[in-house]
């Protein structure tokens, strides 16, 4: 289904501000690609260019096999975009909003009506179908916006912060829905700040930093550093991190050969700097062999979050 997204050397500036300097990325059909970067790194500008709304200054873009500048209609027919701003026609009912969105994609009236019902069901807004959109909560507007992006059954989905404002249950629903859409062979590009959420669904990730997509080498390099893992043992009360029990765990860590400078504490327990997963497995084995009752041993941050933090830190130092 479709050809995914291909971006090579794209840049875009707004008068003095260079929002996107040089972005190169690929998003494959059937995958969920995470677009990650700090505020102001150019995520939204990049998505606007992919969504045929903004003309790039330089570079080459293909969305579903077409150029958004020269063939905007071809792209629009195959691409669904969910903006980061939640605009809706305030006085129109939810159902009518989706029907009109369908009409704007040249669906015949009856097809637009059928499609609206399907989408209401899909995003769980059936009960609110007759309400004007102004009464919707932020999370419900978010779901309406997603439904609108899906109205013409696009093969490429561009989602700008789709999870913000959603409660945990709705986030799980969103994740399941996006995974299902990707399994159908669609290309899904998601930008988000909720990295833990992306961690669970994204099959690949693109990092943006100050308008530049971060190269695979730089990501690999950032991963070569030490990663904090959180260790807790039975009897170690996190509320008494400075107390005797916590000291006992720290002593045990030092005893199995962890240098003291790699051990730190936060309110949840001890953090140990570990080079890679093999290193972590060896450390766990050593602790268990010593008779430490380990109750929790896990990376302190998710994969995407860790890379994001590393890149950000590396950028500032």
């Amino acid at each position, binding site marked *: 289904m479709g050809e995914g997204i291909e971006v090579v050397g794209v840049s875009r500036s*707004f*008068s003095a501000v260079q929002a996107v300097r040089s972005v190169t990325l690929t998003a494959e059909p059937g995958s969920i690609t995470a677009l990650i970067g700090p505020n102001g790194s150019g995520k*939204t500008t990049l998505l*606007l*260019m992919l*969504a*045929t*709304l*903004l*003309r790039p200054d330089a570079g080459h873009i293909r969305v579903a096999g077409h150029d*958004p*500048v020269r063939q*905007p*209609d071809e792209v*629009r*027919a195959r*691409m669904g*975009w969910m*903006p*980061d*701003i*939640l*605009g*809706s*026609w*305030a*006085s*129109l009912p939810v159902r*009518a909003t989706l029907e*009109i*969105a369908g*009409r*704007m*994609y*040249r669906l015949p009236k009856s097809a637009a009506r059928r499609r609206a019902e399907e989408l209401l069901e899909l995003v769980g807004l059936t009960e609110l179908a007759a309400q*004007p959109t102004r009464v919707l909560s932020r999370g419900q507007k978010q779901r309406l*916006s997603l439904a*609108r992006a899906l109205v*013409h059954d696009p093969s490429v989905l561009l989602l700008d912060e789709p999870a913000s404002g959603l409660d945990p249950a709705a986030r799980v629903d969103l994740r399941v829905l996006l995974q299902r859409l990707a399994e159908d062979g669609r290309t899904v590009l998601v930008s988000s700040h909720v990295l833990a959420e992306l961690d669970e669904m994204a099959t690949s990730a693109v990092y943006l930093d100050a308008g530049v997509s971060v190269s695979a080498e730089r990501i690999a390099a950032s991963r070569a550093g030490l990663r904090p893992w959180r260790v807790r043992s039975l009897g170690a009360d996190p509320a008494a991190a400075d107390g005797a029990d916590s000291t006992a765990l720290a002593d045990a860590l030092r005893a199995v050969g962890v240098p003291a400078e790699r051990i730190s504490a936060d309110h949840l327990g001890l953090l140990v700097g570990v080079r890679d997963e093999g290193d972590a497995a060896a450390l766990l084995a050593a602790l268990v062999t010593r008779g430490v009752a380990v109750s929790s041993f896990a990376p302190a941050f998710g994969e995407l979050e860790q890379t994001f933090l590393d890149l950000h830190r590396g950028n500032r130092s």
Partner: protein
Amino acid sequence: MTTYLSGIGTVLALELRQRIRGVAWYVLLGVFVALVALITVLLWLSIGVSDGLGGFLFSGILFFVLLLGTLVAPALSGNAINGDRDAGTLATTQVTLLTTGQLVLGKFLAAWLTALAFLLVSLPFLLFAVVAGGVGPGTIAVSVLVLAVELGVIAAIGVGLSGILTRPLFSIVVTYLAVAALSIGTLIVFTLAGMATSSEARTTTFDVASVNEDVPLPEGVICSPPSVTTYTVPRFDYYWGVLAANPYVVLADSAAGQFDADDQPTDLFTATAVGVRQAQIAPDLDATFDYCTELREEGSAGGIDSGRFPSSREVFESTVPTWFVGLAIHVVLGAGALVWATARTRTPAARLPRGSRIA
């Protein structure tokens, strides 16, 4: 073609549905009807029941509808595009298969139809005026049509400016200023320019010095030497073209002139048109009033008789109509605003207005 029209229809339906759902809209229409009713009653009382009642009522109501239309239409159309951008709904329509032209035209038609609703609710009063009599069928058809087009022009200027300017409040204000420039600005320019370029005029008068009744007529009248007075006259005849762009003048001038047996106007349109067209006639800068010769030849000095000054009907019939020129200027202005707005709203956008967010 049908796809194109159906896209415009979708935008039109969307815009109208949003407006019709607002309570404010019905309140506005109600206030409007009340005002037109009040004006009808006041006109009726002031004119009294006479032959001219229908004509004055009809034209008075239409003038009033134009006045209220120009006051209401900018507010209803002046934020059509940039208001959507502010609400975050513009970009979501721009990523669909709607073209920018369909979007702008749909919004224009919605604004126009909304303004026409004001004409529609005043129809009962117009009907009453027609029943009262004295309104020519030509006047009914042409003036209602011209008023409808004028409301469309204001809607087009409003929607156009909302696409050209970034801030909704600013574009609404500029729309009002544009309407004011046409309605009041033309009048101010006409008046001031006419006063500023005045000419010196001279009147030569030959009066009768004495009459010897014993001598037969021509010789018995002794003429006094000519008396010459000079004064300045404003030259409105240079600037009458400015008034052609005034929407009230366009509406008045488009109606077929209606005169009574004394060649006096029987409706406000004709009265206005005669007043405006009077300006086309250049003042006589070297007038000679020879009362003496007149007396000698005709036996009576008529003085300033009515035959010397043209009647309203003569003024009307001896001058050129300007309404189609004014209407053409307005239509070009409105269409130009829409074309410019379409160019500014087109995506993918190369250039963004300062401080605007596209989404």
